[in-house]
């Protein structure tokens, strides 16, 4: 019978080919950009060597038996069915191997958990479906922004060619200085998300209502990309994480720019805008914040994501719609945008919905939004 020989040959070839390709395509871990990631990758390689040796060893016995102890070769079955010595050995030896592995692993676990004395502390908030960053302590204190996928919908829907960083690009990148210990506090506004940068070996779930933390110290400059890794609803696949690591000087420069930008964008909420101004600005905000659920057509994806075109709320009294957008709708994916957007931005996007897809219910001014904030 050719079965077992073919089996072992095929399995062996498949493993070799697959591992060979993996190295050729560099489809192992992404290159480490922190000592922590390098330590993890070393651990992984050491464990892989160990388990490969065990695997090959055990199955060498099995395939040899498949080859040599076949009935078709006239092999007579032995009738032994226990051997206390052998059984004790193969219980004790794996246990010893585990203890040997446990030692270096434990050291990494303990250092991974040590978030003490950071040089920069950033709070990261998961929203459905974007990340909010707030620089709490250290250089850059007070900076805060929302980071949203910047890949155009056309690329996702196949109407335009996909760019190099398809799904891994954002409008506002998190920027950190190289070589500094950064503590990241994670939390979430709605459901559980998970923040991960593979190059730093740093991953932490963002749990709504609780603060968790992790730390990393990037040892090279560059841009590092990743995605949310905890299923958080419809657009889970579309909330990337991008961290740009820069030199200390560049970081100071970036901090300066951010502070200037913040000062410039501090808008006067009492200014009265014309309706076309609001609608034009609102269209862009709609594309960044609302389109995934309510769709470019305003028809939504009912019933989970209701239509805005012809909607009673959108065509109803201003205050009711402002309240809904400010505070969200509990137990649905409708977020409380009051925490994410300014009064002017909220007025713009609400005005856009009230003037689009056949809705004609009139613009909302920033002051009217401000008045509804609690």
């Amino acid at each position, binding site marked *: 019978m050719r079965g077992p020989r073919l*089996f072992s040959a095929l399995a062996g070839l498949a493993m070799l080919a697959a591992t060979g390709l993996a190295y050729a395509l560099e489809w192992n871990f992404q290159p480490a950009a922190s000592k922590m990631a390098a330590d993890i990758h070393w651990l992984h390689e050491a464990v892989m060597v160990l388990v490969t040796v065990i695997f090959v060893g055990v199955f060498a016995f099995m395939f040899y038996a498949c080859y040599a102890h076949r009935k078709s070769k006239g092999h007579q079955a*032995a009738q032994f069915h226990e051997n206390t010595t052998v059984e004790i050995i*193969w219980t004790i030896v*794996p246990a010893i191997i585990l203890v040997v592995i446990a030692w270096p692993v434990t050291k990494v676990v303990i250092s991974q958990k040590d978030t003490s004395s950071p040089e920069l502390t950033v709070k990261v908030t998961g929203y459905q479906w974007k990340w909010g960053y707030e620089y709490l302590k250290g250089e850059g204190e007070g900076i805060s922004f929302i980071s949203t996928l910047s890949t155009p919908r056309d690329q996702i829907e196949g109407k335009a060619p996909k760019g190099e960083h398809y799904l891994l690009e954002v409008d506002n990148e998190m920027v950190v200085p190289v070589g500094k210990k950064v503590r990241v506090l994670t939390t979430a506004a709605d459901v559980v998300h998970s923040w991960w940068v593979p190059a730093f070996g740093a991953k932490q779930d963002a749990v709504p209502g609780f603060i968790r933390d992790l730390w990393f110290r990037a040892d090279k400059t560059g841009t590092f990309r990743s995605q949310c890794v905890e*299923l958080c609803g419809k657009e889970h696949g579309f909330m990337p994480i991008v961290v740009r690591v820069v030199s200390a000087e560049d970081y100071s420069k970036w901090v300066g720019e951010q502070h200037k930008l913040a000062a410039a964008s501090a808008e006067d909420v009492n200014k009265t805008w014309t309706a076309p101004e609001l609608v034009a600005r609102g269209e862009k905000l709609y594309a960044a914040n609302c389109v995934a659920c309510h769709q470019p057509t305003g028809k939504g994806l009912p019933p989970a994501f209701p239509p805005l075109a012809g909607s009673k709320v959108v065509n109803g009294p201003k205050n009711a719609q402002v309240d809904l957008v400010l505070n969200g709708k509990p137990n649905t994916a409708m977020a409380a945008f009051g925490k994410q957007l300014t009064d002017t931005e909220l007025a713009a996007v609400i005005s856009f919905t009230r003037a689009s897809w056949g809705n004609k219910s009139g613009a909302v001014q920033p002051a009217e939004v401000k008045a509804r904030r609690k």
Partner: protein
Amino acid sequence: MSAVVDSHGHDHSHGHDHGHGGGYGGIMRWITTTNHKDIGTLYLWFSFIMFMTGGAMAMAIRLELFSPGLQFFNPDLFNQFTTMHGLIMVFGAIMPAFVGFANWQIPMMIGAPDMAFARLNNWSFWLLPFAAALLVLSFFTPGGAPGVGWTLYAPLTVQMGVGMDLTIFAVHILGMSSILGSINIITTILNMRAPGMTLMRMPLFVWTWLITAYLLVAAMPVLAGAVTMTLTDRHFGTTFFNAAGGGDPVLYQHIFWFFGHPEVYIIALPAFGVVSQVIPAFSRKPLFGYASMVYATSAIAILSFIVWAHHMYTVGMPVTGQLFFMYATTLIAVPTGVKVFNWVATMWKGSLTFETPMLFAIGFLFLFTLGGLTGLVLSLVPIDIQLHDTYYVVAHFHYVMVAGALFAAFAGIYFWLPKWTGKMYDETLGKWHFWLTMIFFNMIFFVQHFLGLAGMPRRIPDYPLQFETWNKISSIGAFGFGLSQLLLLYIVLKCIRSGETAPQLPWEGADSLEWTHLPTPAPYHTFETPPVLK
């Protein structure tokens, strides 16, 4: 001995094949049956239908993932597919398949006339189609099926539509079915063994089911509790999983995985049992280390209750918590290793032949061990931090669930089909089924290890461009795997309709009671008088 009172049993003589089922014919025979063999058959066919349903969803998932971009399904529907694929495969396909084996085999293997509670047995099965209907119906409710993953994590579950409620009720019913079935199995094994069939003489399949049944009784109520808390959070204003009301979303994960990890062994242990029958039979040699197999199985079952949080290394637990769960988890490698070594030692110096059941058992041994070793890799906290919620995890648990449990179920089907039907399946086609399944399985899942290492998150409908090549290979493998399973259906139907008559002992090395003390095919009622064991 407590025998089942069978009011119509006297009308039927041994070996008389027709008119069984309490005088009912046609569909009513199957609805009213209290016969363990009929119910076993029902479980197995139900499981196959669910396997095809869940499989169709897997095909849809792999179709969408064939290329980057959104082509066929919107992300919401995609999430619904991943959720229902998981729930249907775990609760609808794999678990009922092994309960089917238990029903057919346990009474015959221990020399009992039937299961202890025959009517309860009927009900345990007939709960399942209703639960499955609820799961499938949820797709047609406003908002569709829940898109939260089979783990049903809070608080995302609170955002879902009425489909979530249907799913919760389905889980309740499935749990009830499992608990009732388990009570029946425990009672049967403990009380209805033939004289002389001591516990330590039971075939290993019976042992693994005895332990599994205890796991089910302990774990399923925990899951029912978790989903009930979700239900009250959704509708009745409780805040078990909502921090705003003093709850904690992570509490859900603890409760779920306190069920979820034993669940892994609920699926794996009966598979170990099947393989422990098949490998000795085709090695023509007794199982090596029978006693240590029993102890190892018990050790795995006990350990399975203290390792749950290794599914949660990234939720942010204290370092002592991470270390405890890591050490406890790695310990499972010891009894699992013992089992693998015992199987290999059983083959060693045997007289091996490679019929389809043996091929699937060897496939199981080879690939399950691979999945076990990636499990060891994942048990180590720092490495898991890199791999958690990536495709590496998807690859790992499919090696355990598909190459483990499903391959063992296939081995069991080919092994016992001659005993059940009295006919032989087509050996050539069986071998084709094995090789196609083996090759396509690895094509789907081996490459997913690389996707995970490279950083592709699980449960995403669209992905960055660097993941395209492996996803294409994986999708092609999935389509091939799906089509290959239609071959199984053909082989089984062909066997039932026109298979050659099976010899009394089709497998030379098979030595449990159903082979040595009963005719082939097994008559409708067996062991009405207990066999005499020396």
